[in-house]
């Protein structure tokens, strides 16, 4: 059993009459301590995979599990084991940075002092020390993304699900996060991230899967092979 497992998962969106399914009989396993990059063009099904694993969406057929727990039937157990950063930054605007981190830490069950401690650690980790007292809606897009990623790491989850995690970050922040995510991966955290960036994939992934039209086009492909394929006839992919 993998840390993440998808068994013949299919998904279509209602209203997409005549459109191909977002995912079609997709099977995939990611082990603990592994970082898997899901690559693919827009509409390939990457975000759908992340949404199903994050318990935001249910598959039409097939089964998805995190640590053996079904993402539909055991969603609440799955949610204690995942850290998520979706494409849209999910942070409420009126809160101040330190307040937001402590609030989320409390929701993950930390008591007041532990939440304060962990919040400060993440402030350091995410490079937010200059903006701790600022309200979120006053932060730049990149800083908000750093906070969003910080929230995903806050409760030290064994599984991280990230959708284009560092695309809006400046090069320095991006490098810092890659280093941190690499450390977490080496410590046993399972990471699945959707990406369109070969640089991000090269830095972080130890396995690459390419999706095309909701099915796996190639699994365990090297970044060099992807680069070669993408620089060729893009219409093939």
């Amino acid at each position, binding site marked *: 059993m993998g*840390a993440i497992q998808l068994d013949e998962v299919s998904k279509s969106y209602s209203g997409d009459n005549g459109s191909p399914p977002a995912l079609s009989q997709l099977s995939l396993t990611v082990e603990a301590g592994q970082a898997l990059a899901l690559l693919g063009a827009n509409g390939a099904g990457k975000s759908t995979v992340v949404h199903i694993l994050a318990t935001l969406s249910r598959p039409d057929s097939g089964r998805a599990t995190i640590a053996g727990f079904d993402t539909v039937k055991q969603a609440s157990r799955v949610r204690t084991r995942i850290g998520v950063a979706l494409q849209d930054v999910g942070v409420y605007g009126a809160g101040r940075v330190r307040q937001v981190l402590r609030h989320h830490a409390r929701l993950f069950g930390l008591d007041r002092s532990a939440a304060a401690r962990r919040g400060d650690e993440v402030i350091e980790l995410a490079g937010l020390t200059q903006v701790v007292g600022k309200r979120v809606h006053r932060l730049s897009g990149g800083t908000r993304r750093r906070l969003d990623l910080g929230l995903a790491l806050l409760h030290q989850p064994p599984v991280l699900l990230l959708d284009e995690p560092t695309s809006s970050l400046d090069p320095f922040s991006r490098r810092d996060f890659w280093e941190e995510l690499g450390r977490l991966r080496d410590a046993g955290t399972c990471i699945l991230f959707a990406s369109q960036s070969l640089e991000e994939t090269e830095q972080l992934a130890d396995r690459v899967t390419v999706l095309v039209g909701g099915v796996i086009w190639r699994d365990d492909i090297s970044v060099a092979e992807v680069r070669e394929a993408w620089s060729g006839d893009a219409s093939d992919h």
Partner: protein
Amino acid sequence: MPATTETSPLLVPEVHPPPWIVQVGLLTRRVAIEAFRNPVLILNLLLALLFLVVYDGTVGGVSLLVSFAGGNYYNFILPAAILAASVGGGAAGLLLVSDIQSGYLSRQLTMPIRRSALVASLVLTAAVQVVLQATVVVLFGIALGADPETGLPGVLCVLGLAFVWGLGFAAYSVAVAVFSRDMQATAAANLIFIPLIFLSPLLVPYEYLKPWMQTAADLNPARYVTEGMRSLLIEGWDGQMLVDALLASLAFAVAMGALAIVTIRFRSLGVEG
């Protein structure tokens, strides 16, 4: 790669989510930070105060109405302004749509938070908001000349009724928000307060309504809440009126709460569980 084992942190999570009531408390605090920074709060309050002043200015000189109000029309019209303030309960739906559109709801849905705690925090904050607005309306009414017959205990009962009514209005707006996921549709749906308060004996006593209007008022929970509040402000303690008002506002809150739950199940806020 290391495989998942019995001792893996995957199987023994460090995360132990707090009890439901603590979740509601934490979430309510967060919602309150958003809600009380919203200028719409002030606009709702001004609307309610306008009700008070305009209706007194318009029909407060009609001697028949003033006689029904025990000589003080502000006592008679105060429930209208309080129910108008209950539109503030619609803030629950608007906040939810804002969370949906900003992506924050998605983050919350991936966390070990109970759906019911999320909804309860929105509804509770909005109902508290209604009570605060109603308090300002009552104080403003007293400053203008209202003289509640039952004194402070009666005013507290009026605010209690406003709270339960506010719960219902907030749950209704959450249902609309989940169904439409659209800010304009949710804001427009809050206009339901217009038929609710005008198809009731809000401006004149029930006996003076036309028969069709009386039938509409009989079916309208706002009638009983209005009359309950009015009895406290004008006549004194009337057990039957109070029970009717409490039952009507509770029935409204329960019905709208059920509507919100059905809508959430129908339109799915992520995977439940």
